[in-house]
């Protein structure tokens, strides 16, 4: 919105915050021209907001809820698919209750991770192109898919015609435009997740579906996600170290393999503990997000997990973090590649690496396919870079060094520390569903 007169400034600001925080929340742009920035005027804001074109949905259609419940009751292989909407509406306690009350297994999108604790016996992992075997097979085999607060984007559906082929689909979303957009659903419910789940809790019974739940749990046990076939300091070991040594930290991620590994291995107790750019996938998100998280939660440990590429996309924020004396732990998974893109080039483009090697020099031989010891040093040196901003830096390359590195970071109470982790350059994120495949058809790695 552009502010055109000083008189309308308070109203527009008030409306902007209202729109940003209600319905499907999100950023609002307010354009304040310089003349209005400088004009003097009253600082009184209107008491109420009334925007005739914007009325967030504050109720839920009970008829639709009842239909959903009766469909759920008849299900033999029901499954909850939970997206970021549940985290946004703060419905985590209610969601856990709903899962326990019904006994229905829960899978999440990456934005939905943490909707119920990841250690919960009904939690079966993430769905999607790097989701778990159990979650992806459960979607393929379920007969009722009860989804809440997800957009069914292409990262989770795989081949869309085959998605949850045998299932009736129920979809709760606060945004009517997200319903039946990518996937045509059988029972649409336009409502805030929290409100809808509260209403569901009044109606749902315990379902007799032990065999199904055991089957999904069996898949989870038989096909855990792991990087055991890689040696040395793996992202799995780094993230598991965080799981074991921090109590309820806030984890932010950048975009790329670092993010995908984080979504696979991070354990979450509850809400707003995990900040990741799942929709747009903007590299450079993780570090600034950590700054915001720390400012809002000064007593919570905040750890950003980034790649060597993405860390450089907002590296200037080191100045901000140093200025604000924020003790952030900035874990950089340095593989010397734009790893996520490199993985695609390896798997789907005959390993023709193009513009993804970060140790590349113009004088390199053409068609080089791996970075070696002899390659020029990676630019920048993250330890020196941190020091140049008056922050701290430490580089590690072995799992035994994790403790030292994190202790070093924790010893700094008012400045950020970069922990640069040298990891296997060509490690891949598995499992993976190649684009266009059905979800069950995955490369296990």
């Amino acid at each position, binding site marked *: 919105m552009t502010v055109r007169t000083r008189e309308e400034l308070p109203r527009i600001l008030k409306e902007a915050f209202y729109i940003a925080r209600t319905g499907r929340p999100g950023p609002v742009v307010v354009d304040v021209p310089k003349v209005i920035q400088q004009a003097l005027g009253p600082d009184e804001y209107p008491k109420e907001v009334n925007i005739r*074109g914007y009325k967030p949905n504050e109720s839920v259609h009970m008829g639709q809820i009842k239909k959903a419940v009766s469909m759920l009751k008849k299900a033999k292989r029901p499954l909850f698919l939970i997206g970021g909407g549940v985290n946004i509406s703060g419905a985590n306690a209610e969601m856990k209750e709903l899962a326990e009350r019904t006994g229905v297994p829960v899978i999440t999108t990456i934005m939905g991770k943490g909707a119920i604790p990841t250690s919960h016996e009904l939690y079966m992992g993430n769905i999607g192109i790097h989701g778990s075997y159990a979650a992806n097979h459960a979607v393929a085999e379920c007969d009722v898919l009860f989804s809440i607060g997800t957009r069914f984007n292409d990262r989770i559906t795989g081949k869309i015609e085959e998605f949850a082929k045998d299932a009736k689909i129920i979809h709760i979303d606060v945004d009517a435009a997200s319903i039946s957009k990518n996937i045509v659903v059988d029972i649409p419910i336009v409502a805030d997740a929290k409100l809808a789940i509260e209403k569901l809790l009044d109606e749902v019974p315990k379902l007799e579906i032990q065999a199904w739940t055991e089957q999904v749990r069996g898949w989870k046990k038989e096909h855990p996600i792991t990087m055991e076939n890689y040696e040395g300091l793996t992202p799995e070991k780094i993230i598991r170290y965080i799981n074991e040594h921090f109590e309820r930290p806030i984890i932010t991620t950048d975009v790329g393999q670092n993010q995908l590994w984080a979504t696979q291995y991070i354990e979450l107790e509850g809400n707003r503990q995990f900040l990741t750019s799942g929709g747009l996938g903007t590299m450079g998100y993780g570090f600034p997000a950590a700054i915001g998280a720390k400012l809002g939660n000064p007593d919570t440990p905040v750890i950003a997990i980034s790649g060597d590429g993405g860390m450089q996309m907002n590296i200037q924020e080191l100045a901000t973090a140093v200025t604000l004396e924020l003790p952030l732990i900035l874990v950089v998974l340095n593989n010397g590649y734009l790893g996520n893109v490199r993985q695609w080039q390896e798997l789907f483009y005959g390993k023709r690496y193009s513009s993804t090697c970060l140790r590349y020099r113009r004088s390199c031989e053409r068609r080089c396919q791996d970075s070696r010891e002899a390659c020029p040093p990676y630019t920048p040196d993250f330890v020196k870079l941190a020091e140049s901003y008056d922050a701290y830096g430490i580089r590690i390359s072995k799992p035994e060094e994790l403790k030292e590195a994190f202790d070093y970071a924790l010893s700094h109470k008012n400045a950020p520390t970069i922990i640069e982790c040298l990891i296997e350059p060509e490690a891949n994120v598995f499992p993976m569903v190649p684009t266009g495949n059905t979800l069950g058809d995955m490369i296990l790695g």
Partner: protein
Amino acid sequence: MGMEMKKRYISLYVENRIGVLAKISGLLAGKSYNMDTLTVGETEDPTVSRMTIGLTIDDITFEQVKKQLNRCVVVIKVMDFSEIPIHKKELLFIKVSGCGEKDKAEVFRIAQAFGLEVIDYDKRRVLVQCVKTESANNDMIRLFNQTFPSRIETVRGGSVAIEAISTSEQ
């Protein structure tokens, strides 16, 4: 709901503000929804404009268009004119040039037969105004084109539509 393409009309109440037209057409273009016509004008309430949007579109995409428009903050109300009785008209001007006397007489004859209005002319040119439905206007253009090939110039305004009062009207 089918996938076959149908002609549909939406009537849209929007805030009468700078940038709103760009926002709406940008939204439709950004999603690659193909718009046939869009007209806009102020209403009886000067803070509100009303748009009539004509689309050739399948049912599923049409539902999406309505939802997407509805979630726009500047959109006050979306009315689907597909299933309700409406009046809709479009303004079309046809200019015929290089006319001899016989041609001119023919233009006047067509105008009389189809209820068109001749609103301007000189020695060699005639300007006709047609206020009809979009498809009737298509027919007029075809007729003039056949009768005066390569000698016509047309401009049309896009449909405007409003709900009917008596439900038997279409």
